């Protein structure tokens, strides 16, 4: 067994543990180094992840696998976390939520995500899911002085536990149907074509439900707006970047590898989930007055768009889901970073009206925010547009006309609320200026990387799409 293939996870685990200790013993000054240390550990993990790119290794008696899929999605998760951590300190401090544990929790959560992405056994799927989720619940409640934050944490925890139950039950039923927990074994004995046992399909659907919770697909999305809004905004950025991607990754791995893709049942149900998520997410986003909550609903809608790729299936479409998530990650982390900076009060989140006149007082921030929103809305030439365009095109080619129509209508509806912020920022005059907007180096880094990424991924998509589709190639 080549343990070095597992080194990304090991680094994260040891790093998290050490940060916990460091946090406990360090002085106030020492604590200010925590973000930097976290970034270093994340970067190190990323380097180790890419060191053996191209190899395929099965570790711990078939529990964990190292493959291109792991590297691609692991990199997405690490990148998202890196960007979310980079600007976190001033933002958390401003919301009175700067606690050293946050950084150790981030590392543990990312450890869970990487485990989840590399899982080759249902036990690891569950374990990774829990290691990822438990720190998230704590993070959501990080603003201990705020009722909303604590409420968000509690709700997230309860709903998460509820969903974990579904996932676990699904794993149990699949075990009952196939007699194995190894994903590879399941893939081997899973019937293709006809002859599904109802026990196995029910188990598969329960697993899909458990994962649909993590990616916040309708109707399992209720927790997301509350958790996103209640959590400190820097944490929300992390929520958008990490768990959603990891949830999607394992969903892709399970559905396209373990469970036969030709199964008409799961196809129709995922079709429905996609259509519902797009529609409900967009329509609810329309009525929001808080920018943060609007983005939370937009996250639901984007889960729907990405699910379209899953419905289509095949190397190209599944690869495009990875590409789509890359675009979503860059734009949403960037957008949350800007919102975290523009927010002024601790209790009330940023509303559209608060953005009025920001185009004058903070032109740079508003401009990049506009770029991110344009990408989320899917307006050319940035990443969001290209990703949407290709996914819809694939869906059309495979005959999912209605799904594309629903998606297109939704895209049009979404432009309204995405462009509301820029409209308020540039065209209305604000009543006051907000003098204490602090632009830290970390924030600049996040915004520059996210903005450049959004543009580059958009104007030269070839490389990224190739990378993404080569990561899922071997499932088929």
């Amino acid at each position, binding site marked *: 067994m080549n343990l070095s293939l597992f080194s990304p996870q090991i680094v994260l685990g040891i790093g998290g543990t050490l940060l916990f200790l460091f946090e406990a013993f360090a002085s106030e000054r020492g604590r200010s180094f925590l973000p930097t240390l976290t970034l270093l550990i994340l970067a190190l993990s990323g380097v180790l992840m890419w060191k053996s790119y191209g190899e395929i290794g099965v570790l711990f008696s078939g529990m964990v696998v190292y493959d291109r899929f792991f590297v691609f999605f692991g990199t997405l998760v690490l990148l998202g976390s890196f960007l979310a951590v980079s600007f976190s300190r001033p933002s958390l401090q401003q919301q009175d939520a700067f606690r050293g544990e946050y950084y150790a929790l981030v590392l543990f959560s990312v450890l869970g995500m990487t485990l989840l992405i590399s899982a080759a056994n249902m036990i690891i799927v569950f374990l990774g899911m829990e290691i990822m989720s438990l720190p998230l619940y704590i993070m959501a409640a990080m603003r201990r002085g705020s009722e909303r934050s604590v409420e968000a944490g509690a*709700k997230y925890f309860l*709903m998460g536990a509820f969903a974990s139950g*579904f996932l676990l039950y699904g794993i149990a039923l699949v075990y009952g149907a196939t007699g194995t927990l190894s994903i590879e074994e399941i893939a081997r004995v899973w019937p293709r074509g006809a002859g599904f046992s109802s026990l196995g399909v029910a188990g598969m659907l329960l697993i899909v*439900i458990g994962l649909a919770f993590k990616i916040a697909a309708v109707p*399992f999305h*209720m927790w997301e707006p509350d958790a996103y809004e209640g959590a400190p905004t820097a944490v929300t950025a992390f929520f958008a970047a990490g768990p959603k991607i990891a949830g999607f990754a394992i969903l892709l791995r399970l559905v396209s590898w373990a469970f036969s893709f030709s199964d008409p049942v799961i196809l*129709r149900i995922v079709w429905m989930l996609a259509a519902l998520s797009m529609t409900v997410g967009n*329509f*609810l986003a*329309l009525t929001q007055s808080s920018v943060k909550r609007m983005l939370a609903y937009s996250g639901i809608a984007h889960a729907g768009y990405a699910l379209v790729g899953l419905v289509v299936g095949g190397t190209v479409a599944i690869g495009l889901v990875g590409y789509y998530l890359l675009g979503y990650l860059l734009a949403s982390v960037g957008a949350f970073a800007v919102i975290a900076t523009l927010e002024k009060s601790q209790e009330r989140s940023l509303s559209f009206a608060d953005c009025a006149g920001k185009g004058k007082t903070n032109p740079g921030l508003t401009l990049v925010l506009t770029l991110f929103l344009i990408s989320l809305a899917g307006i050319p030439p940035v990443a969001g547009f290209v990703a949407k365009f290709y996914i819809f095109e694939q869906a059309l080619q495979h005959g999912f006309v209605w799904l594309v129509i629903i998606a297109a209508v939704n895209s049009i509806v979404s432009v309204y609320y995405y462009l509301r912020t820029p409209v308020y920022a540039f065209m209305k005059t604000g009543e006051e200026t907000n003098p204490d907007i602090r632009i830290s180096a970390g924030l600049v880094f996040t915004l520059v990387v996210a903005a450049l990424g959004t543009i580059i991924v958009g104007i030269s998509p070839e490389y990224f799409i190739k990378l993404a589709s080569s990561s899922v190639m071997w499932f088929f």
Partner: protein
Amino acid sequence: MLNTIWLIPVFPLIGFLINGLGGRRLSRYGSGVVACMMVFFSFIFSLLAVLFLKENSYHIEVLDWVVSGTFSVSFGFILDPLSSVMVLTVSGVAFLIHVYSTGYMAHDEHVSRYFAYLNLFVFFMLILVLADNFLLLYMGWEGVGLCSYLLIGFWFHKDSAANAGKKAFLVNRVGDFGFALGIFLIFWHFGSVQFPDVFAAAPEVLGAGGGLATLICLLLFLGATGKSAQIPLYIWLPDAMEGPTPVSALIHAATMVTAGVYMVARCSALFVFSPTALLVVAIIGAATALFAATMATVQNDIKRVLAYSTISQLGYMFLACGVAAFSAAIFHLMTHAFFKALLFLGAGSVIHAMHEEQDLRKMGGLRKYLPATFLTFAIATLAISGFPGLAGFVSKDEILWSSFSSPLGGLVFWIVGVLTAGLTAFYMFRLLFLAFYGKSRFDDTTAAKIHESPMSMTGSLSILAILSIVGGWIGWPEALGGGNSFGNYLEPVFAQAKEYLPQGGHHAYSTEYLLMGLSVAIGVIGFFWAYRWYISESPAAERIKERFPGLYTLVLNKYYIDEFYQAVIVRPLIGGSRLLWHKFDELAIDGAVNGLGRLVRAIGRGGALAQTGYFRAYAAFFSLGAALVLGWMIYLMR
């Protein structure tokens, strides 16, 4: 070296970004230096690229953007002799005008905005001339239109400037509409918008005859008449003189307005398949040349004279295109860029010295006050009037000769061209005499304040003056012992077009000498006429005015064309729009759209009701969802 040609347009873009985003932090001086430097880099890179260009055409794909089915858009650039000439002319003249602007705009409050627009213009113009496909060309086309609009209305606090900007924009829309339709047609029939593909397939698709070639070419030409201010869409150009004078020089004389000529020349491989379209081009060009020249003879605003002169000269270029003398058109385009930019910059120098006075009737005798300006202006006047040996003589003569000798040309075109040449000499010398000769028609306080322009301005003037003299020598005609190396240089670009043209008979050099002599003679007549009316017997002009008052008023008021458009097109359009707005838009469209919006929001609000915030509700919803999923599964699997 050649694979860096994508940098040529990138430099001005960087300049635009620096001045546009950080302009407030730069000093006035800094803005100008950045802008000039960026354009200079462009020029250097263009020069190097052109020198390194060995093959007939160099094609580089910069970006592969969207590939979907049969439709693919890539950003690519083509460098061939034609775009070489354009790139050099654009970046070179633009650089000189940028330098000039640092002096001219030194006292303006919004220097950085000015240079940002100017750089953006250069960026789009370079994209336009380097584009390897119709879409990219169109992007540059629209981009220069936008910059033209922004710069005409640069002093937007003046109503006339803001209105002129709007007028230019709207008139250009009409042309662009045709252009866009033309591009759609091309894509429809050729399945591509890439120049190499389209031109290669042209004989096959258009050669069969029928109306398609004519339709496409006329639509493209409609676009050209808008951008290049030809009949019937020329009316925006004189008003565009509301912008700063260097802008008039760069955009409305030397570069942007020639985009139409460039486009027609670029599409020569399409135009040759439609003799009808070529005939229309030639007629419109000749008519515009003559028509605009007559209007130029009576204008009193120094810049308006030059504006009509520009329209007239552009007419020449289209005349050359129409008789399939594309290289002659491009040649004149280049020399015209030199001397017309010089004329405008000289006029700007005069206006600058006179403190924003543009009325010729309030000038006179400026020779003493502005010696450098006078000298360069006089050279430009000689050049445009076709004084033998200067740039204008060589290029104009080639056009006149082609319009006579080309199998598509004819004596009528030549006569119109020569008449125009005479008128040109007349109105240009009239301008020169009124401004620089005679008695000063301003008071002493004004006279005391007149000063020669700074080095940055006179320096640019001198360089352009030199170019106006020697610029034509590279295309010295064979009849006068030259090699017409310019025409040979452009040969490969128009080679394909040549194949499908009827071959004309050979004309003797003696005919050419005769025609040349005649045109020079007519220019001299124009000169003497102007001399007699405005110098030796200065009241003569007044007498003519009194003798033919109707004709004078008609020409002075530009044949009432603006009023005609106002009555026939603008007013009915506004009335109709108003009707549509009140009756149709407000009731039907707004009602439907707002209703839809309200419906959507109502649905959203209904959905939000489910989001109660209670955990139990969430759990119940979750369970319900799961139950539905499983129930559906059981239904599907029964």
